[in-house]
């Protein structure tokens, strides 16, 4: 059996990659995908811990995370479409009307 630690290390690597993606990438869609990657890395950790403790709480949490991620997708894509209509661009570096 694969030890729980292996899954946790995998999930930590994915989480770090997602966080780097949010901070470094400039395309709003890619940033958005990176956030999803972070949420799903948490799902891997939750399912692995759930198996480790041999109980269902972690699975339950995972379903809630998936559901909420879907709701976030709906709002996020709508915002991206609205921004694209106004600016013809989804580069987040061009979102700088307000500064100071």
């Amino acid at each position, binding site marked *: 059996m694969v030890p729980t630690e292996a899954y946790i290390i995998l999930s930590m690597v994915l*989480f770090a990659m997602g966080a780097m993606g949010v901070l470094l990438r400039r395309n709003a869609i890619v940033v*958005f995908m990176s956030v999803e990657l972070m949420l799903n890395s948490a799902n891997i950790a939750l399912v692995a811990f759930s198996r480790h403790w041999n109980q269902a709480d972690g699975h339950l949490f995972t379903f809630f995370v998936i559901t909420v991620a879907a709701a976030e997708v709906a709002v996020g894509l709508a915002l991206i479409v609205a921004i694209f209509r106004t600016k013809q661009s989804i580069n987040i570096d061009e*979102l700088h009307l307000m500064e*100071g």
Partner: protein
Amino acid sequence: MDIPSFADLNLGVTLPAVFLALGTTVLLLIDAFLPKERRHLTAWFALAGVLVSFVLTLFNFGSSETALAGMFVADSFTGFMNLVALTAAAITILLSIDYLKRTGNARGEFYSLLLLSTAGAMFMASANDLIVVFVALELLSIPLYIMAAFRLNNAKSEESGMKYFILGAFSSAFLVYGSALIYGATGTTNLQEILASIGGIVEAGSSAIFYLVIGAALIVVGLGFKVAVVPFHMWTPDVYEGAPTPVTAFMSVGAKIGGFAALLRVLVTALPFLVAGQTVEPVWQNTIMIVAALTLIVGNFVAISQSNIKRMLAYSSIAHAGYIMMAVAAAANPFTADFAARSALIYLLAYTFTNLGAFAIALAIEKDDGSGTDIKDFVGLARSKPVLAAAMAVFMFSLTGIPLTAGFTGKWFVFQATMQAGLVPLAVIGVLTSVVSAFYYVRIIVNMYLSDGEGDEAAGATPLVNWAVYISFAGTLLLGVFPILATNLTETVTLLASVAP
């Protein structure tokens, strides 16, 4: 494990929040089926819903019970937070009706989103489980992303919504990952059960402590973004400036109510014994102290250089998050935890009235196209609108913390809690930065009363907005003159093992 019966769920005590959440879905239908010429009634239905939930909260006040299989807790802390959140929602509805109309965005779903967000804050205050903390946080945030971008075809508003969305989703990922690690270390997501299992983990010195500490840190990061404390505050000024003003007003209060409620619950109820070495205070105390000190200093000093009232109030709200963070740091000491939690509650109530009032005046002098929110637009307001100017002066005094205003009451209790917990340097930083804050708050008063110039005609000062100002004004003065009104309500607040496991 037995399947809980319907009576075990104890739905009665969850009614204030559940009623609001369910009522909101009904409100969406009402809005869809109302004939066009009656659409303006949606806002009043929303206000009625808030009032019903307020009354339900009062009926439940003072109970101390869990519900929904231990995931939901209804105690005085929940009750007080609910009252503050509902007050904020009611004042925001009053502010929104005319503002949305004159900016051409009068659409009924706004009120549904506002109430959903309020319900999210209420669920966060009653969360007794990491899953509920997460779902409630999203229920609070997702409507706020939409509301921030609510001005159609307005680039600033869309930009504000987008920035809030990306940073908000980013921070919830931190919260989820932190919750996952805490679940991994303890094998449970229930706050009381986490508390019960921590002693053994710390004593055994097992590797689970590593997961616990990292998990707690990630949760603090996630919630820190929501309540806008330094160094997680970068989004705040841009989002506050771009969002429609009533939304900014609600965001500055609602998100903090939810965020600090969850922060206090998770840190004080679940992790008070997460200690390292021979200390009594948990390991998170130093982190919270440093965050509080940084927040106070950055928030108050950067606010000085702002020329836009919404940006200035954004930095001021960051600074006030710092004062509440002082109370959270004081809550690390088990002997002062309850008093510190009470002081945070009183501070939040004082801040709610004062900040909503200040935003109400900013909204009153704002032009229909969103301009007119500069600090120099306040010049001469005392001559054109003496009542509004007097109210604004009181709100500014209250934000500074001058005696006989609500802000003084809040700061008094927070500083007292900090001193009792023995965090003298933090209290000194708090007092000194309060003095600094007087500089930028008093500048507005000087502009209104002492500068020469034509006063603004305050196009937005409609009767409803005036009512919102009067309510905030009354709240600010009442809480300042009779602090006992709030202290009585918080007397039974206790977070440490508030409900027997």
